[in-house]
């Protein structure tokens, strides 16, 4: 019981901090919006999805990828926030209080989840403005679309625990920011997010198809009724919703355990 309460108290603390540093939220929004615009208009014209090089098809294909990339990029700020906390006297205060051990980390990841949800909401509106139309290929409904966003948030939440572990493992918040970002580029690019992964070299294609990130992207395309579903036989591509759920939960279990253990040992 106290674990939930303590986590909420810490989450509230982090959310208050976010409102006191509004530029952080603003930059968090600008980046994915820039990606939407850049990918749509710079790459869009020359991308072939399925058998179509139509810009509108690419737009509908792209959005699930951008959404997924956006939720994973919250990882870096999460890690940086935790690294920052660990190097301030405040962490000693928390550790000297009779509070649940994992609450400092859970509170942070929950606060980041709230921010991610907000970012995703704004991004979805921008996507609609530039021409994303769910249901362009298969029929969809409101419930399926919400389910897709649910999977995105779950993926984002899972990735913040990886960020938390990075934040606890580095010496400075700056290192956590860059260390939290670098690995995200291969993870998000060696996937079906921005291009048709079936056109990659075989070994790269296998990585892309089994990439947990790809599973969520595929699941969203399926739920949103967007074009460009990977026709691969790989299990995660055939059962993307289940794969996405399993992957995200697995990441949470593994990385939360590691991060909480690391947090406990961090200073003793």
């Amino acid at each position: 019981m106290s674990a939930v309460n303590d986590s909420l108290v810490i989450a509230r603390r982090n959310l208050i901090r976010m409102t006191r540093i509004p530029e952080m939220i603003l930059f968090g929004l600008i980046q994915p919006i820039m990606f939407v615009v850049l990918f749509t208009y710079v790459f869009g014209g020359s991308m072939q999805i399925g058998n179509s090089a139509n810009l509108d098809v690419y737009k509908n294909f792209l959005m699930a990828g951008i959404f997924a990339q956006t939720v994973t990029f919250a990882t870096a700020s999460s890690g940086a926030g935790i690294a920052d906390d660990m190097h301030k006297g405040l962490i000693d205060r928390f550790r000297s209080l009779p509070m649940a051990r994992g609450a400092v980390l859970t509170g942070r990841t929950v606060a980041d989840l709230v921010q991610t949800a907000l970012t995703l909401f704004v991004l979805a509106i921008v996507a609609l403005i530039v021409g994303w139309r769910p249901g362009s290929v298969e029929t969809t409904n409101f419930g399926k679309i919400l389910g897709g966003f649910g999977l995105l948030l779950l993926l984002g939440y899972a990735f913040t625990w990886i960020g938390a572990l990075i934040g606890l493992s580095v010496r400075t918040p700056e290192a956590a920011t860059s260390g939290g970002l670098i690995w995200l580029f291969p993870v998000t690019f060696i996937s079906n997010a921005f291009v048709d992964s079936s056109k990659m070299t075989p070994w790269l294609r296998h990585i892309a198809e089994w990439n947990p990130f790809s599973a969520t992207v595929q699941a969203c395309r399926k739920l949103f009724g967007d074009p460009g579903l990977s026709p691969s036989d790989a299990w995660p591509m055939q059962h993307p919703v289940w794969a996405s759920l399993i992957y995200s939960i697995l990441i949470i279990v593994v990385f939360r355990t590691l991060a909480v253990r690391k947090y406990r040992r961090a200073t003793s």
Partner: protein
Amino acid sequence: MPGAIYAEGLVKTFGDVRALDGVDLDVPEGTVLGLLGPNGAGKTTAVRCLTTLLRPDSGKAVVAGVDVLKHPDAVRRRVGLSGQFAAVDEYLTGRENLQMVGQLYQMRAKAAKVRAAELLEQFNLTEAADRPAKTYSGGMRRRLDLAAALVVSPPVMFMDEPTTGLDPRNRQQLWEVIKQLVSDGTTLLLTTQYLEEADHLAHDICVVDHGRVIARGTADQLKAQTGGERVEVVVHEREHIATASEVLRGFGKGETTVEEHTRKLTVPVTGGAKLLAEVIRELDGRGIEIDDIGLRRPTLDDVFLSLTGHVAEVKDEENGVAGDTRGRKPKKDPAKKDPATDPAKNETAQSETAQTEPAQSETAQTEATK
């Protein structure tokens, strides 16, 4: 029966460094123990072990009647910690900080709110209560930090260098708060590198160096170990040093030490104030003009020096009140003070001080004229 804070044979090593090398402590309920030592002596490590932030490699610790190693959470409910750096969230307001800490002490939101308001009032922070803590001055942050440590009125408090980095006025204010706390019955363990602070606040003092307690007792007991009183004279003219030295030799019970560059002579004496009057008359009779004269009893500075063989580190240049200045005339030039109050340092580093001193006085003067 062991005291409110009890430790036996605490050992903590970091790699090759034995930060704590068998520390025993026993603080009776309602008293203040001053843990005195230079930087790196192991003070902070001791506090961290006793407040469950670090697990000692071996040894036993009981705080507020609870075994620290066996029941850390129970200890956390009974202690307050005010660390070396103000542990507050600077983006949160003072009120939000205190409410958060209250809730993490498992108080209900409403109770935490009421308690926060009380503490803000008590620590004179009501006006700044709804401003983010990053707008606070150093003194205000420390007060907020201390308030956070007191949210549940813990029976046992740990303060790790509570006044490091504070200016003299804020230090004085914090001392008053601490005294009030102790008079209300809180048991306090306080670490400090300021001898004056330990002298002022602590009932008992443990001197720590290299992870070991090298002496313990009351301030007076420790001072008594170091020897008796002495007369210190600062003559106005350098050429009077020889004559003054001759005069002092007549009264002294030991060798007279002379510091040429500060024009200060020191001689051990017995006979107190009466003797001091005689010395003044004699010097006056010989036409020696004096800038300063006084009967000095050993300070904790001296105690420290005689125990450790090295001077207590004075890191804190900003405020320059590190040493024991009580019973001395206020010095006009703070930059001169450290070398002047540390006889031993002067002996070993005379040439160095002599070189740097004019420069220091100059800066001090320019600052004063600003």
